[in-house]
Each structure stands twice: as C-alpha cells, then as structure tokens.
C-alpha cells in the first residue's frame, strides 16, 4: 500500500525522503542530506524553549546524533521525518530540564501577543500589563500545555503538524489547545 505523507506534496518527494532514510541506514554519511534539510527547523524549535543560543546549538547536535544512532528504529508512518526529529528534540529537552542541565525559557515574541489575546476574546489593555499577566499565566501552565501554546501561537504550527509531533489526532490537538486557551483566559481574568 502506498503511504502518502501529510505534508509532502509530491510522490517524488516522499520517495526521495524515504530513499534518503534508507540510504542513511546503510551509510551514516548519507544522513547529511536530512541533516541539512531539517537542521534549521530543529534548531529553532529547540531555541524557542531554551535560554541561550549555545544551549540551543548543543541540544540540536544531540538531537541529530541520537537520530542517527537510532535511525534503524525509525518506521515511516506517513508523516514527515521532521515529526520524529521533533519528538527526539522534545525528549532531549525534557531530559536536560529534568536534570537542570539547561534553563527552561519561555520566549515570547510580542508580535504573537495580539493573536493569543484575540483567541481568548479578552480586551487588551495596556500591552505591558497584558504581557505581564500573560507571561505569569503561561509560566504557570503544566509543561505539556505550555508546549502546545508555544507550538500553536509562537511557532504558528498547524494543528495537523502538532498532532503528528505529539502523536495525537488533529482534532484532539485543536480541542486541547482551546481548552488551554480557556484556562489561560480564566487565569488572566483572575489577575484583574
């Protein structure tokens, strides 16, 4: 049965990526193509969650090393290879945070604030105050919920991709995000 990737547009690209993975299983030096293809995405994903560029670079190197070591275990499930890499990155980050090896950071781009407050349907007062309340509420969220908000609003990921990375359906990702939004809204209102 032919498996169609959810993100890849053409059969040619799907076949190409699968071939690249198979070739890299035989010869690790062939992994370079995938490394180059996904390096920036993984680096930025990691950087969104850590404090310094050095931390992001170190973790990203570890992610690709682990991916290469475990490449034999990878099974193609119709989602881009990047989803697997993101999961490795999440595991690596969680391990680092748990052992206090790196600082967990919440990195907010103020350009994203309007979108998130609009989603919450709350009146935006002075931006500074609003930002303060939002950051307090966000940092109080459990890790898995903060992760979803970051993915949706700070990284602008589609629900489908979030589902692929977090191993859930697109609908489930959507429902969860809106529940977290409600929770955030209540939290922000409580500060008023």
């Amino acid at each position: 049965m032919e498996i169609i990737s959810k993100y890849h547009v053409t059969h040619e690209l799907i076949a190409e990526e699968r071939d690249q993975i198979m070739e890299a299983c035989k010869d690790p030096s062939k992994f370079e193509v995938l490394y180059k293809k996904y390096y920036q995405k993984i680096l930025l994903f990691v950087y969104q969650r850590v404090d310094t560029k050095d931390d992001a670079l170190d973790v990203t190197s570890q992610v690709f090393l682990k991916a290469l070591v475990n490449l034999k275990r990878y099974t193609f499930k119709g989602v881009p290879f990047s989803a697997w890499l993101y999961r490795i990155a999440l595991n690596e980050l969680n391990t680092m945070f748990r052992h206090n090896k790196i600082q967990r950071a919440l990195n907010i781009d103020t350009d994203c604030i309007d979108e998130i407050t609009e989603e919450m349907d709350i009146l935006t007062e002075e931006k500074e105050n609003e930002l303060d309340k939002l950051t307090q509420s966000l940092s109080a969220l459990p890790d898995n919920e903060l992760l979803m908000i970051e993915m949706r609003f700070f990284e602008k990921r589609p629900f489908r991709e979030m589902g692929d990375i977090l191993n859930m359906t697109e609908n489930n990702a959507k429902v969860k995000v809106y529940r977290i939004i409600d929770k955030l809204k209540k939290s922000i209102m409580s500060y008023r």
Partner: protein
Amino acid sequence: MKKIKINIDREKFSQEEIGQSMDFSKIISTLPATTKLFYKSPIFYATVFSIATIITVVVLKYTMQTEPPFINPPLKGVNIGYTEYTLPAKADTVLDYQTGSLIYVPKDAFLDKDGNAINENVILKYRELHDPADFFLSGIPMNYDSAGTTYFFESAGMADISAFDSKGNLLFANPKSPIRIGMASPQKDDRYNVYNLDSIARKWKFIAKDTSKYVSATIDTTHKQMDSLKQFSYTPVVKKVVEADTDNLIQKENINNVVEITQSLIVPKKANSGQYHFKISFSKKDFPEMAGYENVLFEVDSSDKEFKSQYASITWENVKLMNGAKENEYVVTFSKGTETHSFNVHPIFESNDYNAALIFYTKKFNNYKNAYLQKIDNEKKEQEKKKLEQKTLNEKRITEMNEASNMQMIWQQRLAAKMQTENIFFRTLQINNFGVWNCDCPATLPQGAKLIADFRDEKGNKLSLDKVYLVEKGKNAVFTYYGSSFNRFQYNPDAENILWAVTEDNKLAIFRSENFKALGKNISSYTFTLTITDKMFTDYKEVKTFLDI
C-alpha cells in the same frame, strides 16, 4: 515549582549563524563506532577482524595518499597563475595588479608562525578570479551551505593572496595591520557579500555585507555615510556629521498617535431623556471601540424621523447592528417576518453607567497616552544614543583617515582617480588572514527543468565522471553537479547553457549551448552526448576560448 525564565523579543538566530553552526562532520565524528557499522554481527567481527585490520591500514594509507586537496584544479596542467611581488615588510607599499586592482600593504602586515613581525623582504603571491572559466580552472569550490541549503556563488570577483619569507616559509597576516585590496570588479551591483574560504573547515565563512562602493581607511559596511568623503580632501578631513531632524519627526508622531487613541474608543455620552433607547447584545470582537464598557445602550438619533413609538412594544425576531457613516454612529435593523426597519443610533449610558464609563474612558485614555508618551520618550532617547554613536564613529573614521600613512592616502587617491578616469568599479577587502576572499552572492541551482542525466561520449560509451560543470550565460557562476546528483540535474531551458566535464584522461568534454536547444522542456531523463577534444591545453586563455564563456 518549575523555574521558567521569561524572555521578551529575544535576539533571533540569523541565517548566517544557522549556516555557520551547521556541521555534519561533527555529528559523524561523535557517532559511536557500533552505529557506523550496521551489518556486522559479533561473529562477523571475529571472522574478519584480522583481515579488516590489514585492509583498514591499507585503505587508510591509500586514502591519506590519494585524498584530493580541498582546492583541486580539475584540468591538470592548467591553472590561473599567481603574480609574485617582492616587497619590504617594514614599509608601506601599493601594488598594481593586471586587472586594475590596487593592493595596499602597510608595514608590519606579515607575521611568522610564532606571531613575530617580519623584518626582511617578503614574497606576496596574488591572483584574481573573475569569470566561470577562472572559477573552474582554479578548482576553488563555489558552493556555500547556509541553513541547510546549498547555494552556488555568483561572484563579483575573488582574490587569492598568500605570503612567504625568503626561505619559502608560509607567513600569516597581521590583523593589527591589515592589507587592503581595492579589487576592480566588472559587476557593479551592490548585492555581493564578502566571504573567506576556510580551507581547514572546508567551507566558506561569511565576513561582511557588500563593500561595493569605494570607501576609505577601514572596510566600511555602511559605506553610504562615507560618500561625502569621495573627493578625498585629506589634510585635514572636513568634519561633517549629518544631524537628522528627529525632534520634529517625534513631535509629529506624538500628535498622530493621540488622534488614533481617541478614535479607537467611543467617548461616553449621557442618555437624552427625550429620546428612545434600547439595549442590544453585540459582539465585542466586531465593535472593539465599545468592548470595555458595561451596559451600553443605543439611542435613536433625534434626526431619524423614521422611528415610531409603537415599535418599542413589538418583540422583534432579529436585531442587527452595523457601523454608521460617521464615527460613533451605528445603524440598527429590527426585523420580524417580512417587516424590517433601520434606524440611526448612537451609544449612550444612563446615569451611574455613564459615570463608570467615563472613569473607564479616562483611565484607558490616560494609560494609552502615558504608554505612547513613554514610547516616544524611549524612541527619542534611542535616537539620541544612535546620533551620539554615529558621531563617535564618524570622529573615529576621521581620526583614522587623518592619521593614516601617506602611502595609504596614495592608495586611496589612486583608486579614486581610477574610478573617475578609467571608470573602474572597485570592491574593497580588508585581509585579516591569507587565503581566498570572495565578493559573492549565493544563488540557487538553475530552475526550469529537472532530469536524470546520463553522460556519454560520441560513440555512446558511458563516461565515468566525478562531476560536470554547468554555466548559464549571464550568470557569473559555475554550477557543479557531482556524480550523486546526476539524477537531479537542473538547468534553465530558457537560458543559454554550456556544460562540460574533465574525463579520466584529463580531456575536456563539452556539451554546447546549441545542443541544449535540442532538449525538450518536459523530459524526465536525458543522455548528454559530450564532444571530447583531443587538444591538450597548456594555458588558461586557450581553455576560455574553447569553452566560449
């Protein structure tokens, strides 16, 4: 409780930083040995251990002997030659190069391997590469990896510079006394950046944005500020700092912002006891100017004569609120069955609600105003800081120019004179280390057609090629396809293309532009029949003529 550090608008990774941090060789080098060898079981290891050891030693030896150098001229016996200059290390010198370029070598520009300044004469080797034939013959890799994508350099000229002492020992550039090159460039665009080839890391390093205009003592990436100094009146340099009229700009912005604030919020009005009014539920998202108020009522305009008192006793099925023609004016439409009435209304508040609304409006307005004033104040401070920085920078440049040696001034004056009289366009390079320096613009592979390529000679025999070179006329670049990418060969069918390769027996094999024209636009594979010349080239000019590029 978890500790999270909050960062607001933190500095992002630049594309250059991403490109430079990418290092697959580091990943591979840290890969555990067991992962590198996938198929080999313990039994297999035991069986072949001794043989593998021998083979490994032999292979390593062979590899060490035969691994090609990073800069590897592909056509044996032909290369772009260097010009050698012998010059005193303890004096300033200006060197002329055949292309019109001028090289300024200050005293103490050379260091030995221990970092000591050289006292005696040195031999400086220099060459420039300007066109695709030069790039090909030099064997300098012209691909550049940035953020996971491989680009090919479209060049505005390269300089290859090195120095030796009288015993032939390699010398090093002194960063405290850098050599400056005014490189004559046929390309006049300002889109070319400066890169330096790191032959140890085997990759290009981004150095600076374009330096396309002629600038003075230091390499100046913000060359526009130096345009006023083009006439080179050095003794003394006229001090000129352009002051922007920032105060006026800020004042204007301030006024505009306050106007915007008042427009983004309705001003509360008291109900008129003589007019009908009613409450309507509306979406705060659709009417953000009323979103913060409680108990907003809508009063029928006294000018609207369509409203009749009996409408107040009807239970309407639908009510729709829309913006009116003017600010603070709205249109409400009541409908029931086929009956529909629209009236002009405006938002009002009854006594206590009015007071609350007024407090809300005043607070909000003041908050906005204070925030804007603060913002403007910050911007003003920032502007003043920048102005001061610019002033300091200008002072520094002027001091540098005034303190520069006579020979440097001669170099600058000669560059300026050449620009004016010979119409030569210069790019300036400041050499902090010897090697290859490049004024380039990264370009993607040609677009338009992609196919699986097969390369054969005129007898139909498959050619064993490491790589083929493609040139698209009009682009100052060589696109190199390696064997592994022959099945993803890209070219622009609308351009004039030339392709060639070097055969195993060091002959040039070519596929000319007229042959390209015979290729269909939508083919998925193609066998390129290359014409192999028996001519043995000894000079780069012969190669250029043969390739006709």
